[in-house]
């Protein structure tokens, strides 16, 4: 375990030195990056996303597979992306804008360990990265929050909830919709009434 830690720390040190050497080049490419970001944003809007960029979908999928399961919700990946997009869109407060930024960080942070970007890493390598670096107290510990994004997207789709055995309240056999709701006439529909 100690050898792994030393090895991984050396990788980070080497990556930082490399980044320092390449920093002038990175600075020069900033205008290009800006144009690329603008194009990505436009492309995301064209796909119907409020916040996500097309490239972020690969990151979200890679992240979800690494944290949770390779048993993807089948053809529901689009719903996973839509859920995350909706969450980012609805989240208020000054930290709301940080969440999409965090997805970019998730994608590029493996470079710090001399690995490829997250969505280009094989599954086994992604899991190794998580197990070795995304630990509380570690340098990349805060990246462990990426598991919450994975779960938020994966488990908020209806198919995942249903297949787990969860039954929404109005559909449960053991309980009936509240009497008051059923007796109520007019007004806005509640979920219980819709189901009834």
């Amino acid at each position: 375990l100690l050898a792994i830690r030393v090895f991984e720390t050396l990788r980070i040190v080497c990556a930082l030195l490399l980044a320092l050497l390449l920093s002038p080049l990175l600075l020069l490419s900033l205008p290009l990056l800006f144009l690329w970001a603008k194009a990505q944003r436009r492309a995301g809007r064209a796909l119907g996303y409020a916040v996500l960029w097309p490239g972020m979908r690969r990151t979200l999928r890679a992240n979800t597979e690494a944290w949770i399961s390779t048993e993807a919700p089948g053809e529901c990946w689009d719903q996973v992306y839509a859920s995350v997009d909706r969450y980012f869109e609805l989240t208020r407060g000054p930290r709301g804008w940080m969440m999409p930024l965090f997805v970019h960080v998730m994608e590029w942070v493996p470079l710090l360990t001399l690995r490829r970007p997250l969505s280009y890493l094989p599954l086994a390598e992604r899991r190794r990265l998580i197990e070795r670096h995304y630990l509380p107290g570690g340098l990349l510990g805060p990246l462990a929050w990426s598991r919450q994004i994975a779960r938020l997207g994966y488990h908020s789709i209806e198919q995942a909830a249903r297949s787990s055995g969860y039954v929404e309240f109005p559909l449960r056999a053991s309980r009936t919709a509240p009497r008051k709701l059923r007796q109520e006439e007019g007004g806005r529909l509640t979920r219980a009434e819709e189901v009834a």
Partner: protein
Amino acid sequence: VTQITRELRTDCVVVGSGAGGAVTAYYAARAGHQVTIIERGRWVRPEDMPPGEMEAFATLYKDGAAQMNSAVTMALLQGSCVGGSTVLANVVCFRLPETVRQAYASFGLELPRSELDASYERVESVLNVHETREELLNPVAFKLERGMRSLGFEPKRFRHAVQDCVGCGECNLGCRYGAKMDASRTWLPMAVERGAEVLTQTEAVQLEVTRGRVTGLICRDLSSGEGLRVVADRYVLSGGAINTPEILLRSRILPQRAGRRMSLNSGAMMVAEYPEPVDAFDGIQMGVYLEHERYTIEQLHNPYLSFCMSQPIWLDRLRDQRPDHYRYLTSCGVLTPTESVGRVFLHPLRKLLPSLFQRAEIKFRLPDTDRRTMVDGYKQLARIYLASGAKHVYAPTHHRVAISSPDEVNMLDEALHDASAIAGLGSAHPQGGAALGDDPRRDVVGPDYRVYGHENLYVMDASIFPTSMGVNPMLTIMAVADYASQFIVGERPPAVIEEGPAFAARQSCAALS
């Protein structure tokens, strides 16, 4: 806020509409004051509650339920809507333990037993607090009761502040059936009926102070981005244990003391798997609990997404083996009062990078004594789970630890050897940060609920508690606000509140129309 475009004049401004703010606002309005309540979130009626868990996280919780401590190791959940955290709480009601009341008195927070009891009576009558009906309990509650009794413990059933509860098991997402007697359904409408106004989607930023007197409150209208100055005779901070110190620090009021001595009721969920489907989601989330001198074991089964997000990630992967695993699982927590070692502070780089560090930072690391207490609680909980028929008990750890017999319970000592080894550690009950006491050199708020050195600035929320109370705090915050109204508003509360449960019942029916 760069430009003030509006100015508002009122008698009393209350910042925050949660448990403390709502009660204070009611009594101020009742005393004939013109009251303005400042609230960052929206007023969400039961029928407008978000349709799903994810939407509820994003719209009702502060920072989309992603508020963490600086080290990103603990989640700190707070509400961000009218009614504050009470809208998202399980509204389980505990009175302040006598030992804690005495400890508070030693700091200078005097809460005379008889007067506090009278306050509890009044608050409980408004909230319709009663022991939960048996048919609302989820199936695991009965198993846990049997397990506790077989080990010689006496389980208790929670008292809830509900009316016509349907047992949907989604209390933490806001009550879409209008059954929860939170602040937005009781004290706030009662205050509004007496003339108070609520400014929603308005964030209190900073107080203006001149020679020991607050002369204005600068707010930001979050829908338009415009600045607003509220001028009042008295100012009451009730934004909770993180927001209140944050406003004090931004206003440079007692910066050496504000934000310090923050404590939590902390814990993480411990999951058990039963050999047969138990459908723990079918009933109220919190049914039974077990009191211990140093901690409380509380049944708390979250709705699907919240459950998945609070369990250890390796447990999530078990789904590959049995897709419907959720039906077999349940969770409980060990609510542990922590030492007052936390701190709310403003980041030194906030002026350089304001959009990055606009919010206050929270520094908290679980002390080792509290970790040991927590581990004792988990060991007890594991024994209870196994006695109740559970096949496996899964430790809240980052790597898989499953306990299948009472002999293996001591594995938890090793598995949870350090605070960083506890997965899913968090709190929904931050306290302290503007502690009340009789020492002006140590405390922020004086025994008259006034901030030291500021004649018209009061604090009434969980931030005044000098230590963690160790039980769910909603009822006690409301009761202390009831008691404190004689200092803040200048009038003693009446023996009986006329609106009481009848008002809540009327609200409950109105919400359904």
